[in-house]
């Protein structure tokens, strides 16, 4: 059962047939899914936005303004980040939204980001963190528990903030935590980087798709689920044109990284929700008997999770599906013996603190 946002993203001209009530719902769903600027871009591309009333189009323009400002800030901030990394002879490798925008890809149009994600080799992580701190970035307050979680069990260090500009930086040394199954060999990504601007690198097109699918299907929280799937759809429509070998190598690369299950889910759901054109048989190639067996359950979980968290879009049992996925993804990140104390601890912390990251918190309960 399709919902309004899904229909209009795929066929922007249909927006001209909507009445004001439906347009209100459309914008509401788009905001809910963090896709308002992407929707605005789609409508702009088809010259639909200029045909809508100003009462409607002002909201779309507003979203585009926010995206444009982020793009400008990203250009400036990435220069500064590069200076820090240059000082310790490390390359600037950007991930996710920041990568899409800096590489000026169609997937980056209308994309909104909350922070900048970069990838560094694991052995350099301490050196990198020290360098950023010398250049005016700081971790802010992270309570002891979250600090330990990051250092020991995560694939990233606590977020860094530039004190002058307020920019937030996530420094990753892998795409999945070391406790996760599978255990990804991050050095493989470094073998195939693409230089998209002088001194600024991203993952290869195939790795970008695989990373995006992995990030989505291992995540605990699906507020960005639909947005991430839209990203996948945009990439899968664009990258084959950039690299004639794109499809041939995609599945084998995913197997090399041991991330073929995530890719399988990514391809499946992108096609189901957005009709992403895929070569014949590729989904079958990516999957195996286990994915086929699990498919009805996964469909139940994921198709609910990908709808915007909006009453008009929710299917029955969505809250149950989201809870199951949250536990599933934590299971993927952390084995059960680590997971249960972790979730219990997080719940306990929520009662007493705003969040484990940025606020000054005098309390520091130890269980």
């Amino acid at each position: 059962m399709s919902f309004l946002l899904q229909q209009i993203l795929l066929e922007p001209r249909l927006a001209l047939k909507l009445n004001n009530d439906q347009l209100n719902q459309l914008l509401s769903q788009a905001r809910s899914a963090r896709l308002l600027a992407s929707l605005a871009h789609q409508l702009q591309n088809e010259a639909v936005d200029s045909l809508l009333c100003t009462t409607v189009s002002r909201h779309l323009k507003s979203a585009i303004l926010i995206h444009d400002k982020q793009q400008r800030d990203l250009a400036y901030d990435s220069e500064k980040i590069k200076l820090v990394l240059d000082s310790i002879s490390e390359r600037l490798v950007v991930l996710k939204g920041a990568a899409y925008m800096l590489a000026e890809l169609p997937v980056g149009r209308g994309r909104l980001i909350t922070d900048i994600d970069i990838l560094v080799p694991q052995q350099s992580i301490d050196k990198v963190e020290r360098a950023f701190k010398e250049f005016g970035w700081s971790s802010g307050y992270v309570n002891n528990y979250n600090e330990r979680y990051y250092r020991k069990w995560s694939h990233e260090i606590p977020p860094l903030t530039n004190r002058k500009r307020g920019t937030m930086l996530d420094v990753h040394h892998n795409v999945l935590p070391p406790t996760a199954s599978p255990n990804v060999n991050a050095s493989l990504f470094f073998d195939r980087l693409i230089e998209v601007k002088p001194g600024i690198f991203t993952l290869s097109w195939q790795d970008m798709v695989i990373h995006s699918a992995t990030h989505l299907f291992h995540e605990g929280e699906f507020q960005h689920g639909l947005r991430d799937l839209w990203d996948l759809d945009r990439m899968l429509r664009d990258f084959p044109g950039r690299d004639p070998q794109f499809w041939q190598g995609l599945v084998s690369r995913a197997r090399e990284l041991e991330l073929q299950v995530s890719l399988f889910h990514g391809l499946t759901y992108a096609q189901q929700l957005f009709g992403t054109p895929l070569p014949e048989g590729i989904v079958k190639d990516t999957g195996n008997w286990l994915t086929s067996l699990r498919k009805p359950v996964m469909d139940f979980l994921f198709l609910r999770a990908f709808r915007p968290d909006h009453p008009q879009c929710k299917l029955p049992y969505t809250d149950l599906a989201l809870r199951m996925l949250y536990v599933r993804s934590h299971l993927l990140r952390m084995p059960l013996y680590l997971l249960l104390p972790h979730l219990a601890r997080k719940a306990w912390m929520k009662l007493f603190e705003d969040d484990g990251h940025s606020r000054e918190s005098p309390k520091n309960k130890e269980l």
Partner: protein
Amino acid sequence: MEFASLRVNARPDCLRKVITVTMKWRVDSMGRFYDPAEDTVVYFDSHSGDTHLLSDFAAYVMQQLDDQPLTTEELVNKISPAIGSSNIPELTMAVSGVLEELVALDILKRE
């Protein structure tokens, strides 16, 4: 944070340490000025997106670097007849101070 609400103290009588440099200074940003003939000027830096409150002297020094990079000495020699100051050491101190402040604001770069 977007603002350096900075009153750059750059009158010729300021007691800043003289920095002798032979490298050149250049403007690192494109920007816009709002100059309503008060002793401060608003400058919007298109590069960083920051807005600054500069002394009129700092804005004037910046504008001398519009066409091409200059050394401190070249700057001072250019400015001195225009502002009617023949006290070169004092003017050099003032200009050096301003230049350092503008570098800290990411408006100027040394090259």
